[in-house]
């Protein structure tokens, strides 16, 4: 196998962009019509993912130590889609046919051999990782909705019971699929530390135009079914650290941090914890009541709510205002006001802009080194 020949050929083919993936899937479905049902109706997102994954693999084809873990994770991820060993040769045949079609007269027997060898290797690593994963965990978990709480017109808290224990670390997330939007998987963080009864909480915010979040927020009812993939994610508590903890949550970015906070409450000697919970407006602080309860219960915990888009007061004269301690300003500003944060581990989760700005402020002047910060953003993964 000649890595450079593969890269050059892929670069040439990839110039055709979306058309390549379109041809690939059409070829796959014409040859194997039964595979069409494994994909959503709209395929544009799927095609982008395919091209990105292929590009990623081809670019690292001569760097196996980096490539193999990526392919292994790909293999494990595909279990929940119902992909099994017999599908791999079918995908391989259509991939080679696509590459041949777009290479035109540049296609040679050597290239065909190179691609066959490369694909066989990728398929082998994916299948082996999937098989190994199958020894310890199911391809997916079925879940039943135990409770739905609409906290605001666009925010819901769901409690879901998986059909068997779903072991995870607080801060991790799972891909969710609802029957009303089959084949659309979206990642959501568990908002609680593992419980005896295995139930899981999810905080969902409706994203305008998001096909899955709208169903989760507006249509879910007790007794509804969902499917969940294996837990993933590296935003987890550094259990080896004895430092004090700073948690900064924007909107439903609260979910993983609340799970970690619950984990801390179970420690025999909890560190001091500051939790900042921010939103644009007061009514979007959807979980403040529960956080305040926790803060009253545990002397080592301080909860600081913050709103960025509302002026002081809310239209009523001063004597009607409750002293609820809500601070005004963006999260980075409010966090800075309470700093510096030397000797703290910081965990930050929320919208990308909020996370970026908070991390920047923490590392420049607030005394937290980048290596002491763990962060996660939600982008289009939760639509």
């Amino acid at each position, binding site marked *: 196998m000649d890595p450079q020949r593969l890269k050059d050929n*892929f*670069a*040439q083919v*990839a*110039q*055709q*962009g*979306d*058309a390549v993936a*379109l*041809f690939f*899937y*059409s*070829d796959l*479905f*014409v040859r194997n019509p039964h595979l069409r049902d494994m994909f959503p*109706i*709209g*395929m*544009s*997102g799927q*095609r*982008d993912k395919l*091209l*990105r994954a292929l*590009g990623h693999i081809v670019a690292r084809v001569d760097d196996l130590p980096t490539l193999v873990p990526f392919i292994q994770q790909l293999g494990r991820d595909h279990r929940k889609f*119902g992909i099994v060993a017999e599908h791999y040769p079918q995908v391989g045949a259509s991939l080679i046919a696509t590459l041949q079609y777009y290479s035109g007269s540049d296609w040679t027997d050597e290239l065909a051999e190179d691609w066959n060898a490369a694909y066989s290797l990728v398929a082998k690593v994916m299948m082996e990782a999937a098989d190994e994963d199958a020894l310890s965990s199911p391809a997916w978990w*079925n879940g039943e909705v135990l409770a739905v709480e609409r906290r605001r*017109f*666009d925010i819901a808290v769901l409690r879901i019971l998986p059909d068997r224990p779903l072991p995870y670390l607080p801060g991790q997330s799972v891909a969710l699929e609802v*029957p*009303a939007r*089959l084949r659309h998987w979206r990642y959501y963080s568990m908002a609680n530390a593992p419980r005896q009864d295995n139930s899981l909480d999810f905080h969902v915010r*409706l994203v*305008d*135009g998001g*096909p899955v979040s*709208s169903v989760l927020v507006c249509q879910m009812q007790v007794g509804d*079914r969902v*499917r969940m993939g294996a837990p993933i994610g590296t935003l987890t508590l550094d259990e080896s650290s004895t430092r004090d903890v700073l948690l900064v949550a924007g909107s439903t970015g609260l979910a993983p941090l609340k799970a970690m906070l619950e984990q801390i409450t179970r420690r025999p000697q909890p560190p001091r914890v500051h939790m900042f919970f921010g939103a644009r407006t007061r009514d979007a602080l959807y979980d403040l009541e529960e956080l305040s309860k926790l803060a009253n219960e545990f002397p080592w915990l301080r909860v600081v709510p913050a709103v960025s*888009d509302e002026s002081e007061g*809310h*239209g*009523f*004269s001063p004597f009607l205002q409750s002293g609820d301690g809500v601070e005004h300003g963006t999260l980075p500003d409010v966090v800075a006001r309470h700093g510096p944060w030397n000797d703290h581990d910081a965990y930050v989760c929320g919208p*990308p*802009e909020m996370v*970026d700005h908070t991390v920047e402020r923490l590392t420049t002047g607030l005394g937290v080194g980048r290596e002491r910060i763990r962060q996660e953003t939600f*982008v*289009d993964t939760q639509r």
Partner: protein
Amino acid sequence: MNSPNLPVVSAETRLSPGELHSVVFQRAALGRRGYDEDQVRHFLQYVERELVQIFNEKAALAEEVSRLRTKVADPAGGLPATDAHFAAVRILSQAQQTADLYVADAERYTRELGHEARMHREAILTDAKNRAERLMEEAHRKAAAIADSAVRQAEEAKAAAVARVGETAVTPHVQGHGQGEVLPEDERRQMEREIAYLRTYSDVYRTHLRSYLEALLRNVNEWENSEQASLRNAPQPPAPGLP
């Protein structure tokens, strides 16, 4: 990081309609600096449609080229098996692109609808807050005026009483406590004023609040009715079962 989440496109690959569709620009900071959101959105839609068009035309051209090529290579004509396969692939591709376009349109429609509803909600809330503020101000103004007049009346009544007392005789009781009475008298007046203020304030506020809440309730009822009506008109498709 201040750039929008522009798709990661390496030098060799092309921007796809799907990638363009998922671009999210970050919100301009308070004070509304930056581009007009609607204009940006419309432009993105325009570019996305153009891209789809270009890809379609390109696919059609490539198809035409390969058809001509086969013809040149095989002048005898006929439709070999590979041609039939490519034709099927092409038909399926076109169907898929049509489906993608419909899905994207539907998503865009709900996104814009949701966005508008959100703006609407914010406008209603702001309006309600302003109203509440005006109510409170009005209640305060009226209550203050009435309290003032109550104090004035009390003072007049007291002056009249003092005049009456002066006409008759100075009692030992008044003599004995004359010095100490100044403060309680002030306090009493202050409290009278405050009671009158609070009574009026709460009266005015209650009246306004009641009529406002009734109006809100009517709104909610209308909303509920129209939602039920629309749900009846558009029944949900049965949800397919999980595998």
